[in-house]
Each structure stands twice: as structure tokens, then as C-alpha cells.
């Protein structure tokens, strides 16, 4: 049923056009309703295609298969949540909405890409508008926006250079070229191109040392953009990494697997150890988000089907945990509650918010029965089954280290009593509840998601 593929393209264009219209009529509520509806429709269509397990190509550039549909579902769903979060937070919602629609298109294009150029374009399309989304909030936000812009320029130059290097060997720039022509494996230029890919994508995937911009930008940007960066952009980068690298990891030199292992280890330690001394909760979560990227990289480094499945599962898990957490942080930020000291007594001010944040943090640590536990369980078992026991051990050690700073926040929230209650807005409340349901429900019954990622990984491997 090829119609479904065209429906996705049509919905994407519809979203962009409606946002352009929104800039002129400037009716916030209508714009929110329109973009949310389109995102819901996108999610529904992709879920339908995922269910049907279709596999074909649309317009010769976009692939419809279980892998792409799974991530179209994830992206449209998480973007929907971020859209809801941004409604109250943005001073200029229609402009935000226009930029946001580009991000949506970029993310979905990466998910469905069938060539390297499409992937690079998609990544660029998600990162650049994000920089502008930061800057439209006012003068105070110039600095993080410019940092993001400069760093993304560096990264995209790497990516483009990588594409150029590969062109002589694979003029179609399709992902299949590598496999079709195994002779190119040993070429220096191809190796160079691949490592530039790793570097360029690691910028967005937050792998050390390409991630140094992250704490500044995460902290400087409004929390809804931080949620976007951490909940969607990072996932987009990992999807690109899965698409480009995974196929190659299986077929090319093992050095790339070793490279990813090294990046995973350094990133986990860097994120967790620096987070230990952070005092501001948003910055703390920025570092924690870095360390989580390290965990996801474990599954890619394992270079096996189980590894890909676990990485994909953890992408889902992390998206829900981090968006939920940032939603609460966003709400507290707008009430001038920022540092760990100011979180004191939060449980007495709004016990449901404190409870939800605690659940998200426990899930990030990897405590059962939440989704994070299943995700980490899968990741570590994939490492073990790929004979990387030491990598799993380092992952566990890092989880233990992370308990310290998460517990600091939890203890602070549940000690002391503050009189003034805090009330949460409806849209943020909805986002938090959806994330909470996802974190608990998938944690208790991960069966369907695991079987979905396993179908998706089959497509990826068959590619």
C-alpha cells in the first residue's frame, strides 16, 4: 500500500505550509492545534505502516520500512511532546512553530533516508533551525545559539568532507555502495571518510570530545529547546549513526567498533564525573544526557543485532525519560527554581511533580521496573554477548556513579518543608503524564517495543 508513504510526505509539507501560514495569521492556539494534529497524524500513519511492515521507497529518496517507520513514530511523538511544552514557554510561538516544522522535516528525513547526502541534509535541517529557535527568545540567548551554530558548522563541514571523499568510490552515495563493493574497504580515503562521519555525527550525538558545547548550550537555552536537543536531535544523530555505521561495522574493519567503544567509555565517564560537581539541575541533566549517549553507543559498539536492538530501545527509553525530566525542569525554571538547593522541599510544594521527577531519575539510573532498567539491561547484555564484558562492567560502574548525583536531587526534593505550593500548567502536566506512563508501562511490559525494534533491526541488517 504505497499510499501511506506519500501520506507521510504530504503531512510533512502540510506541516511546513501551515507553519508558514501561522507566521502571517499569528494565532497561537490554532497553530498549536494544527501542528499537533499533523504530528498525531504522522505518528498514526507511521504506526500503521509499522504494523503493516511495508517496505518500499517513495520519490526515490525516502525509504518506508519498519526501521524508518519506527523512528518516524518516535520522532513525531517526541516532537509532539516538545511542541506542547513550547507553547507556554515561547514568547513568539508562530516563529517557533515555523522553525520547529523544519526540525520535524529534518528528523523524519533522517529516519527515512536512503542515501548519505539525505542523511547529512536531514541532520543539518534539525540543527540549524534549533540555533534560531534559541535566538528568537531574546538577547540573552545569543551566546548559546551562536555556540551551537559555530559547532554545527564545524560538524557539517566534516560530514560534507566525508561525503566528498566517498564520492569517487560510490557515486550513488547510497548506503548500499559499501556492501556492493567490498573492495573499497581497505582504502585510506574511505577510512578517513568514515572517521569524519563518526566525528561529525558525534557532535550531535554528544560523544566526547565532540560534545563540549553541550553543557553551555543546554544550560543557556530555554528548557524546551534543551528537551528538543536532548530528546530529538541527539536521537536523530544516533539514527544516522545506526544507518551509516552499523552496516559498515559489520562489513569493514573492526577498528571502527573499537573507536565507538572508546568513545562510549570516555563519554560515560566524562558525563558522569563532571555531573558529580554540578549544582544547577539543568546543567546536571546536560551532563547526565552526555553519559546516556555513552550508554547508547555501547549497543552500537557491540556491532550485533542485539546491540542495534538495545540501542534502538534505549533511544526510545531515553527520549521519554529526558523529555519528562526536562518538562519538570522547564516548569520549575519558570518559577525560578534552578539549583539543587532551591529544589529543597519540592515534595511538600508539589508532591506529584517530585514523584514524577524521582521516577524519571530512577529510570535514568536503571532501577526496575522502569523503562531505563530494561534499556540498560539490553545494552549491557548485548555488550556481554559480543564478548565486551569489560564494557558492560564500565557501564555498570558508571550507573553506580550516577546514583550519587541523581540521589542528591532526590534527597533535596524530599527533605525540608516549603510552605508555598507550586501549580503545574496543563500542557506541561500532560507531557509529564505521557512520559510517566511510557516510562512505567514499557518498563513493566516491554514486549511489544522489543519485538518492534527487533523487526526494525532485521530491516537494517538486511539493507
Amino acid at each position: 500500500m504505497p499510499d501511506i508513504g506519500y501520506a507521510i510526505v504530504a503531512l510533512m509539507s502540510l506541516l511546513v505550509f501551515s507553519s508558514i501560514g501561522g507566521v502571517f495569521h499569528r494565532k497561537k492556539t490554532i497553530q498549536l492545534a494544527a501542528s499537533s494534529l499533523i504530528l498525531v497524524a504522522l505518528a498514526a500513519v507511521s504506526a500503521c505502516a509499522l504494523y503493516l511492515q511495508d517496505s518500499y521507497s517513495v520519490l526515490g529518496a525516502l525509504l518506508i520500512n519498519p526501521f524508518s517507520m519506527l523512528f518516524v513514530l518516535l520522532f513525531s511523538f517526541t516532537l509532539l511532546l516538545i511542541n506542547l511544552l513550547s507553547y507556554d514557554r515561547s514568547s513568539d510561538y508562530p516563529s517557533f512553530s515555523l522553525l520547529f516544522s523544519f526540525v520535524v522535516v529534518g528528523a523524519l528525513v533522517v529516519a527515512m533516508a536512503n542515501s548519505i547526502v539525505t542523511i547529512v541534509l536531514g541532520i543539518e535541517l534539525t540543527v540549524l533551525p534549533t540555533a534560531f529557535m534559541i535566538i528568537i527568545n531574546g538577547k540573552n540567548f545569543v551566546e548559546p545559539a551562536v555556540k551551537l551554530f559555530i559547532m554545527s558548522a564545524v560538524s557539517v563541514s566534516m560530514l560534507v568532507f566525508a561525503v566528498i571523499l566517498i564520492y569517487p568510490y560510490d557515486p550513488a552515495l547510497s548506503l548500499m555502495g559499501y556492501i556492493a563493493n567490498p573492495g573499497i574497504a581497505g582504502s585510506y580515503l574511505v577510512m578517513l571518510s568514515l572517521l569524519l562521519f563518526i566525528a561529525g555525527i558525534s557532535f550531535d550525538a554528544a560523544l566526547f570530545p565532540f560534545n563540549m558545547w553541550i553543557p553551555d548550550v543546554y544550560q543557556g537555552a530555554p528548557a524546551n529547546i534543551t528537551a528538543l536537543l536532548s530528546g530529538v536531535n541527539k536521537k536523530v544523530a544516533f539514527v544516522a549513526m545506526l544507518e551509516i555505521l552499523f552496516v559498515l561495522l559489520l562489513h569493514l574493519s573492526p577498528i571502527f567498533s573499537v573507536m565507538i567503544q572508546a568513545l562510549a567509555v570516555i563519554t560515560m565517564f566524562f558525563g558522569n564525573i563532571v555531573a558529580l560537581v554540578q549544582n544547577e539541575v539543568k546543567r546536571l541533566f546536560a551532563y547526565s544526557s552526555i553519559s546516556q549517549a555513552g550508554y547508547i553507543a555501547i549497543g552500537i559498539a557491540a556491532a550485533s543485532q542485539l546491540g542495534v536492538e538495545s540501542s534502538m530501545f534505549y533511544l526510545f527509553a531515553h527520549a521519554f525519560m529526558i523529555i519528562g525530566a526536562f518538562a519538570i525542569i522547564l516548569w520549575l525554571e519558570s518559577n525560578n527554581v534552578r539549583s539543587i538547593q532551591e529544589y529543597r522541599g519540592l515534595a511538600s510544594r508539589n508532591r506529584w511533580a517530585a514523584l514524577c521527577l524521582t521516577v524519571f531519575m530512577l529510570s535514568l539510573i536503571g532501577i526496575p521496573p522502569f523503562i531505563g532498567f530494561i534499556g540498560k539491561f539490553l545494552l549491557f547484555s548485548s555488550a556481554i554477548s559480543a564478548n565486551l564484558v569489560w564494557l558492560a562492567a564500565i557501564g555498570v560502574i558508571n550507573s553506580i556513579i550516577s546514583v550519587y548525583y541523581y540521589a542528591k536531587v532526590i534527597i533535596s526534593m524530599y527533605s525540608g518543608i516549603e510552605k508555598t505550593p507550586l501549580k503545574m500548567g496543563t500542557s506541561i502536566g500532560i507531557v509529564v503524564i505521557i512520559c510517566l506512563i511510557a516510562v512505567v508501562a514499557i518498563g513493566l511490559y516491554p514486549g511489544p517495543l522489543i519485538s518492534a525494534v527487533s523487526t526494525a533491526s532485521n530491516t537494517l541488517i538486511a539493507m
Partner: protein
Amino acid sequence: MLPILVVVPLLAAAVLALLLRNNPEPVKYIALLASLASLAIVAYITVYNPSATASFDWFNLGSYQFIVSVSTASTYQLLLLIIVAIITPLIFLYSIGFMDVPSEQPRYYFEMCVFAASMMLFAMSTSLITLLIAWEMLGITSYLLIGFWYDREHAPTAARKAITTIIIGDVALLLAVVILATAQGGFQYPVAGAGTGVLFLAGILMLIAAFTKSAQFPFHEWLSDAMEGPTPVSAFLHSSTMVKAGVFLVILMLPLFNTTYLLYLILVVGMASVIIGVTNALVSRHIKKILAYSTIEDLGLMLIPLAFGQVYAALALFFVQAFYKALLFMSAGSIIKANKGEEDIFKIFNTGQSKVVFITALIGTLSIAGFFPLSGFFGKYAVGSAVSSNVAVYAILVLAELGTSVYIFRWLFLPMRKNPQHEIGAGANSVPLTMIIPAIVLAVLVLFAAIVFALPHSGVLDALVLQSTNTTEALVVNAVAAAGLIIAYLVYVKGNRFYLSMNNSHIFAALNNNAITNGIYLAICSMFLHVGKIMGMLDSDFDYTTYRLSYNIINSGKLAKPLINGQTNNYVIGFVIGVLVLAAAVLYVVI
């Protein structure tokens, strides 16, 4: 889907109990109805569809399938399910009379319903995953129920003691399940266990789990303390749920223990528990603790034939014990209720005045002592004949049965003493009808349950078979019981003064205060204390090391902090350095 339906009414009742927190009046009836519904479903399964199964794919991970599955196909499991389903409504009915404080009821029935449901789930589970879930649920709810009256002096301590012991078993079971799943490549029950290597370890861990749950030596201490819970809980816990789960785990995992050493371990632990149970029951003054020690003995008696591979003998006692122990606890509860909470058998008098309570208690005691034709006799007889080939074990069993008979009649006779000064108060009349009826039902069951051994063996009755008929052994059981009755009569009824003078003698001193067993505990405890001291010394070093380590880790965070100094050019430099390092790595490999 049929088996899973069994637990649905109870879980629904549990939820309702929570919802009706502020309006507790109907909760007790809802719980009773739910338990009756469960009983009806179990009856339907037994009659029409004895091999019903239900399974639910939780999630799959590689080759491991985490399946939650239940089934009543195994006759053993169906038997346990039936026992639980019969006892539950009786306990709930009894609770209506016993738990007469309205504000306590929602919490009580919530915990009881979950407790009963988890035992039923345990009975039906056919995968190690389901087993583990049910096992944990049993542990947690039993902790809540033992500490139910958390405002009383000893209840929290008792509950803590119980949960500490039980968690040892939980961890052991979890490890055993992991080992088994890895060795077998799945979560099914072991069918043929080679007792070597890791499976031997899994067997030991399984046994530790079983011993903690069944309160067997050396993990038996929590059970007598668990008397701090409400009496219906004790009656439930000792007859069909919780402690029976341990023995049943041994039955389920029997292929795993098919090595000499493990069977020997089961035998030794069973014997030790029997001896500990009998000696303590002989000297305890607490009307419920005597029964608790008696339970430890009963469970030991069930383990002993298992060590000889005689499952049927164990099951026979397993079956009859549920009824007489529930009956005895209900009688104890009624006596306590009639005496306004007095639990010392030396301070309770005139219980003979309430004819119904007395007669039901008498039936229970005659049954546990082993008089023909009450059902208890068949259990004792089956166990005895299963081990009669081994003279030493048999001799100890006979002695233990003599002890059983003595202590249980002591338990009956002492509260019966007439004391005109002692007002029984509202006494006999204050025991409500809801507490009398279940006792009568159980008394009838105790009287006639033995009929099942005579019925043709089909369906669930396959599990209840008497392997042999040996008149001599049957006579021995009766003779020993009679001897115990006579001794108890002479000592505690006729020889009141003799008994009191004996109070100061050396023999009694040896038994009293559990000198011997206490000595053993003390030795074990002091051993652990010594280990603890050594650990303590190590610990202070360890503390210092971990402190330094964590201090350094946190400080290293401070060291890494200047790396992120807000300077974008530094970040670009970092980026470029990263690319160069990666390039160097590739070059190193290629060249």
C-alpha cells in the same frame, strides 16, 4: 485463560479494599465473596478442565523468553491450589469475627487478598519467572501482615526479623533462577538435573530459599516471632500459604536435588527442624508459639520423606496438615479472644466451658497427635512408613511423635484447668459465630479428609496415595500418640504439683528456655559476631578507602570542569583533537 481467572477476584477485592478505605463496612464481605468465587473457579477447573493453562509473553530477549505462565496440569500443583482455595474463605470468614476494628479492615483485607492471590499464583506457576514473582509477592505481603499491628511493641521487630530471613531466601532463589535459566537456556522447571557443577550450586541456593520460607533450621527463628501478627494470619500462614511454599518448592525442584549430598542436606535440615520444633513446643508457654514450633516440626517431617524421594508421603502430610493446623490456630484464636487477649497457657483457665471451642480443639489435637482414623494419622503414618527402612531416622521420628503428642495435649489441658477464682468473663459467649463456623467446617474436614486416600485414584487424587499398608507401623503411630496423651494427662492434669515441682528440676531446666537450641543459636550468632568483628575491622579500612575513592572521583569532576569554560574556540580545538586522535587510530591500524 482459565487458571489466571482464579486470582482475579482476589486481586479485584484487594483493589476495592483500597478504594473503600473510608467506608470499610462492606470490605470484609467483598473479600469473602471474592475468595468464594476463587474457590468456585478452582472447583470448576478441577472437575471440568484439570489441565488448563494460560501463558503470557512478557518479553523476549535473544533466545530467552520471559514467559509468565500458569497451569493446573500437574496434580501436585492442582492439589496445592485446592488446599489454598478451601482454606482462604474459611480464614476470611474467621477474620470477620476476629478483626473487629473497622478502621483496620481495608488494609487487612487488601494484604490478605494479595497474600492469598500470590499463593495461588505460586501454586499454579509453571515457569521460573512466575515462580519468582509469586515468591516475592508472598514475602512482601507476609512482612506487611506480620507487622500488621505496627503500633504494638514487638510487631515491627518480628516483621523485620521475618523479612530479613525471607530476603536471604529471595536472593538465593533469584540466583538459583539465573543459574538455572543460563544452564537450561530457558525458564522452564528443571526436569532432570545433573547434580554437578553449577546445577549443584543452583540446588543449594534453591534449598536455602525453601528453608527460609519454610522456617527450617537454621532459618526457623522468624516463625515463632511471626505470632505477633493477627491470629487469622497465623492460621493462614501456617496451614496453606507461605511456609508451605518452601516445602512445595522442594517438591517442584526435586529433579535438581537428585544427588546424594543435597538429599542428605534435606534430611539433616528436616531432622534438625523436627527436633528443634518438638523441644521448643514442649516448654513454650505462649499458646500460639507452641503451634508455631509445631509447624516447624511438621514442615521438617514433610522434608524428611522428600530426602528419601518419597513425594507421596510428603504430599499426604502436606494435605492433612493444612486442615489440622488451621483448625488449631483458629481454636487458639478463639481461646485468646475469650480470654481478652491473654496468650500465656498458664494464665488461661476454664476453656472447657465453651463446648464448641473445646470439641473442635480436641479434634485438632487428636489429629495432630496421630489417632486413627483422623486425617492426621494418615500423614504421620505415610511419613513413618516412607522412612522405616532407615532405623535411626525412624527411631527419631517415633520419639518426635511422642513429643508431639505430649506438647499438643499440654497445649489442650493446661488452659482447661478449672480455677473458680478466675473469671472467664464474657468468655465462652464472646466468641462470635463467624469464628465458630469455620472451626466447625475445618473440624469436619479434619475428621473426614482421610477419605480421599480411599477414593479411586484419578485426576487430582493421583497426588494422594498411601504407598503401603503396614499394620505394625500404624499401630506404632497410635500407640505413641496414646502414650503421649497419657503422659500429658498424668503430668498436666493429675500431677499438677508434681509438674510444678519439676519446674525447678534439672531436666526441665535443660528443656526450658530452649537451653540447648539457644546454645546453638548463640554459638552461631557469636560466630557471626566474630566474623562481624573481623569484617568491622576490614570495614573501617574499606570505609576509608571508599571515602578517599569517592572524594577523588568527585574532585576529578572538579578537575574536568575547567575543560568546559565557555570558550567556543576551545570546543573547536577539542573537536579537531578528537578527529586527529581518531585519524591516528585508523592510521595505526592500517599501517
